[in-house]
Structures are given as C-alpha cells and as structure tokens.
C-alpha cells in the first residue's frame, strides 16, 4: 500500500480530531477527540514503521520496529493521561455539575 494513503488517512483523522476539539464544548468529547488524534498518529507511525521495514528489512530484520515500540509507549502514556484527565473532569463536575468547558471562565484577559 503506498505510504501516502496512510499519511492522508492519518491526517484526515487527525484533523477531524482537531475540528472536534474546536467545535465541541463538552470536556469529555474534547478529550475523546484528542484520543482520536493520538490514534491517527499511531496509525501513521505503524505505517511508517512498515515503510522503513520494507526499505531496510533485508539488511536489518528489526528495521522499523522502533516505530511500533513508540506506539506502544503512546498507548501507555495515553492511558495515564486518561486516568488523570478523567479525574480532573470529574473533579470539575463535582464542583460545578457541568462538563462545559466554557462554563468556567473566571480566568481571562
């Protein structure tokens, strides 16, 4: 599969994620959009990993494996982030009974 298919697919997913962040006010949905962005990156990384493997696999059987390892770490970090993020959102909900990010705007200017 040509790599640019993956590139543009990932970009599309990524930008949908960004558009989601921009258009939604629900903190949880925004967070999910960010997760979508991360997944787009993951897909791109794995595609690149296989691309590099296709190029250099003959010389080095492990070529490209680092991309997949990176994805693994992204998932690890994402998991940690989710736990913290949801805790923060929950805390906010506890205080305000809302997950609207615009509900809180004491801090401005």
């Amino acid at each position, binding site marked *: 599969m040509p790599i640019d298919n993956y590139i543009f697919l990932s970009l599309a997913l990524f930008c949908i994620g*960004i558009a989601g*962040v*921009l*258009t939604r*006010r629900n903190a949880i949905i*925004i967070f999910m959009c960010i997760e979508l962005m991360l997944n787009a990156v993951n897909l791109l990384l794995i595609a690149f990993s296989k691309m590099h493997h296709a190029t250099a696999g003959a010389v080095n059987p492990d070529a490209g494996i680092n991309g997949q390892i990176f994805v693994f770490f992204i998932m690890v970090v994402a998991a940690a982030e989710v736990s913290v993020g949801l805790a923060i959102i929950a805390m906010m909900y506890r205080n305000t009974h809302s997950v609207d*990010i*615009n509900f809180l*705007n*004491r*801090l*401005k*200017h």
Partner: protein
Amino acid sequence: MSNYVYLVPLFPLIGFLINGLARRSLSRSLSGAIGTVVIGASFVVSLMIFFQVKQVGFEPVTVPVFSFIQAGKLNVAFAFLVDPLSVLFLLIITGVGFLIHLYSTAYMKEESAPDFAKYFSYLNLFVFSMLLLVLGSNYIILFIGWEGVGLCSYLLIGYWFKNIDYGNAAKKAFIMNRIGDFGFLIAIFALFNEFGTLDFAEIFKQAPTVSTATITAITLLLFVGATGKSAQIPLYTWLPDAMAGPTPVSALIHAATMVTAGIYMIARSHVLYNLAPVSQTVVAITGTATILLAALIAVKQNDIKKVLAYSTVSQLGYMFLGLGVGAYTEAVFHVLTHAFFKALLFLCAGSVIHAMSGEQDIRSMGGLKKYLPITHITFLIGCLAIAGIPPFSGFFSKDEILTAAYGKNPLYYVFGVAGAAITAFYMFRLYATTFLGSFRGSEKQQHHLHESPLAMTLPLVVLAFFAATAGFLGIPEVFAKHANWLGQFLEPVLAGGAAQPESIASSTEWLLMGISTGLVLVVVGYALPRFRKHPELEEPRGLGKWMRDKFYVDEIYDALIVKPLNALADFFNQVIEKKVIDGLVNGTGRLVQYSSRQLRYLQSGQVGAYVLLMVIGMVLLFVVQLFLRK
C-alpha cells in the same frame, strides 16, 4: 613703555575690585575717592605713554601680558597694542572719564554708601573694559572689552533697578548690543577662518590677498557689530532708552566713550574697509540716514536727556559717514571733539536735573540762566560746538567730514548739512527752552534751584574749555598747511585710509564750509528768539507727532520682531513641545497601553478560542513554510 602699559587698565580694575568687594565697609567719600583716583592714575599713565608715542619715529608696539586661549592654530594672546590711535582713545577715556568720576562724586551724593560704592565699581569696571577695548591687540581682546562695556552699560542703566522701566531699558540695551555682537562674533570667526589669526597686525598684512567678496562680508558683519554698540540704524533704539541711567553714566558711556567703540573698531579695521567699497558705501549710507532720522526725532523731544541722546545718535551718524567715505582721521577727530562737547552737554544736563530735583522735562524749565550761571555758559559753549559754529570744536570736525563726504558724493554732503542745520535747530531749541525765558516749574522746584557744587562745575569748565578749543587740534589744510596735528599724529595708523581732500579744490572747500556755516547760523538765528519767547509746550500734530513718537520705530520692531518671536515661542511651547513631541512620546506610551488593553481580549478565557488561535498559528507557520519553499 611695555613695562607699564598694563597699568592703564589695571588701575580701574583695582578700583573696581576694591569698590565692588568692600562696598559694605567703605564710606561714600572713600569709595568716591578710590574710584576717581584710579582713573586719574590711569590718565597720568596714559599721558606718559602719549608722550612716548608722540615722539618721532615711534613704531606701534604689541605688549603681551599672557597667553589667553590656545587651541590648535588659534593662538590668542592677552596683549596690548600701543599706537597713536589707541593712545588717543586712552586719553579720551581716562581724561573724560576722570572728569565724570569727579562729577559723579557730587552728583550721586544721595545714594546710600554701598550703592555709591557699587556705582563707582561699575564705573571703574566700565573704564577698565573700555581700555581693554582700545588697547587690545587682537579682535578677541577688543571683543572682551566690547562685551565688557556692554555689560557695564547694562548694569549702570539698570542702576536704579527698582524701577521696572529702567530695568527694561537696561535689558534692551544689552540685547540690542548682543544683536550687534552676533554680527561681530561671526565676523571674528570669518576672520579667523580666512587668516588663521586674530591679530590686527597679521590680518591687515594678509588682507589684500583675500577676495573682495569675503572682505566685504566680513566688514559688513563687523559693521553690524558697530551699529549695535554705536547706536546706528537699525539698532539705535536702545540709546535713548539708556538715558534711564544716572546722568554721568549717560555722559561717559552713552555719549563720550562706549558708543564710539564702533567707530574705533571700524577705524582700527580700516585696512579691511578700504578693500571693500561696498561696505564703505553701506557704512556711509547708514551713517547719513542715522544723522537725519535721529536729528528729526530730537527736534520734538521734550526730555532734556532724550534730546541729547538723539543728538548723540545723530553725531555718531556723522562719524560713520566719515568712516564710510574713508575719512578715518576726520571721524576719529569728531569722536574726540564729540567726547568733549557731548560729555559737557550731558553733565550740564545733569547739573540742570540736579538743580531741578530730578525733573527732566524741558517744558517745566526755562529761565535757568540766572540760577545756574556756570552751567548756562558751559551749556551754551557745548551748543555752539555741536552746532558747528566756528571756531568751536564741532565746526572743524564736522566740516572736515562733510568735505570728505562731498568728495565722495555730493549727496552725502547735502544730507550732512541738512542734518547739521537740524542739529543747530534742536540744540538751540533745547538751550532756549531751558535757560532762556521764564521759569515754568513748580514753586518747590524754583525754591530749590541752585548752582551745583564745585565737584560738578569744575568738570564742566574743563570740558567747556576743550569743547571750545579742541578743534584746533585738527585744523583743515585749507586754513593752514600742516596745521592738522591730529592728522599727522594718526598718520602712521590711518595712513592711506585718509580721504583725498586734494581732490577737492580749496575754493570748493571754502564754499562748502561757508554754506554749512551760513545755514547753521541762519537756523540758530531763527530758533533762538522763537523758543525764548514761545517755548513749544503744546502737543505736536502731524509730522511733529511722528517725530515726537520717534517714527514708531520701537513699535514697528515690537510688531515685526518681538511679537512674532514671542508668538513663535508660545507656539513651540504650547503646541510643538506639549502636543507634538511630548504628545508623540506619551502617545507611544498610550499606544502601548491601548494595544495592551486590546490584546488582552485575545485571552478570552475559552479553551476553544485558545485552540483555534493555536491552530491559526500553526496554519500561518505552514503558510510561511510554503512560501519559503517556493
């Protein structure tokens, strides 16, 4: 001689220092004595120098005192130049100065002791400055004296500083002089630029090598300086106002000495003027115009000192006319005779004012002849001298100038004679109104009338003597061959510059003299009886009003220069400074504050907006990247 020439200015300086610093502890008589004696000492030393200079075969000497300014090729020595011209002025200054100091000891009696000492210290400082002026061997020393006399004039005009008008007159004198100095200074810079030195001797030696245009510019600038100091058009208006000072000051500074500084300076620079015919013409025309303008104004003045002041301006005009036509010796001669008769006239006026308890308006005088006999006689001699009636001194000097002027251009002569006639007219108007007829002042004044003390009358007598006889120092060639002592004396300095009387036939000269003398006598004959019987007491009308109001020159200056300048200053102060420049500076500050207020609305507090701005930022960066790749 080089050993003691410095004593001449030193004595007055010492007098100034003693009187100035110890004025609180000196009694009146002591400070008066100090002030007078130092001038007398100077006079004695000057006389000694004079006799040396007079000897045959004398060469001008430069006496260095110390090195004054040294920077690059500018090397100004504090040095004195002794030659016939400077010595002649030394004698006038110290001689007349001594008499006036003496006169002052009596005239200023009513001042408190410190003020009295202050007065004498100023007077001494003036003499010191004036001596520097004429002794200086280069333009810097000349300029030091030049400014120094201006300062003393300022201080003395404003001597009675509590009167705002007197202060204003002092200020006006100083500033008018400064305007002249502006030209003088630039002339000095130009001289230095052209010759690389400011020494008279050096400059005059090199002068012929410089282009006429340059010399013309320099001489015109020097003349600007001279018009300031010597009260010529257009800078003459300060001199009549300067009469605010004590009368002896008017006699010394504003008649006999300081105002002739301009004549001295031009005579000193005559080598340059000879090379610049255009400048000479300008000088002559200015002089002629001043003669007529000042004389006309004097006709309608009622303040005794004002009349004399305008007459001074007018007489100075004669001297400039002389300078302008190249008759330097004659101009200096007129300086000499004028010093005597004008100092005399002023001192007489002082005596009158003294007797009249400060009254200066001639309309309140009249018939003083019987109360002030000495003053009356001496004043009359002064009038005769200034009117140019033979054989009084004024006749010789004035006629020599007029003759020389005729040689240059008969028009000068015509105007000069007209001026002489007007001079005779107003002087005798003054004389008749003051001394003849009947007394018109108040009872109290009449009761108080008395002849002045000896200290005042003695100088009058001495001056009257010289005013009557000084003319014989420079008898024109037509009277007697080689009788012109002054011309011979000044020959080494002013040689080559002297007018060419030879070009005029002696018969013409006789005729010219006759015309002017006759005209003057006719005028005197008309004026004397007219003003004795009918002194002019009512307000003048028409042209007379214009003349009385000095042709509104002061008002014109005010409207043309002072007011616009003040308006410009106000505009700068109120608009440019506060609004434009400060406004720009503060505006920058305000702009920052304004941007700050606006920019902070970017910080809307909403995550969505923040992310959007970040995305826009990214997009922009990529756009830049795309452009860079292209």
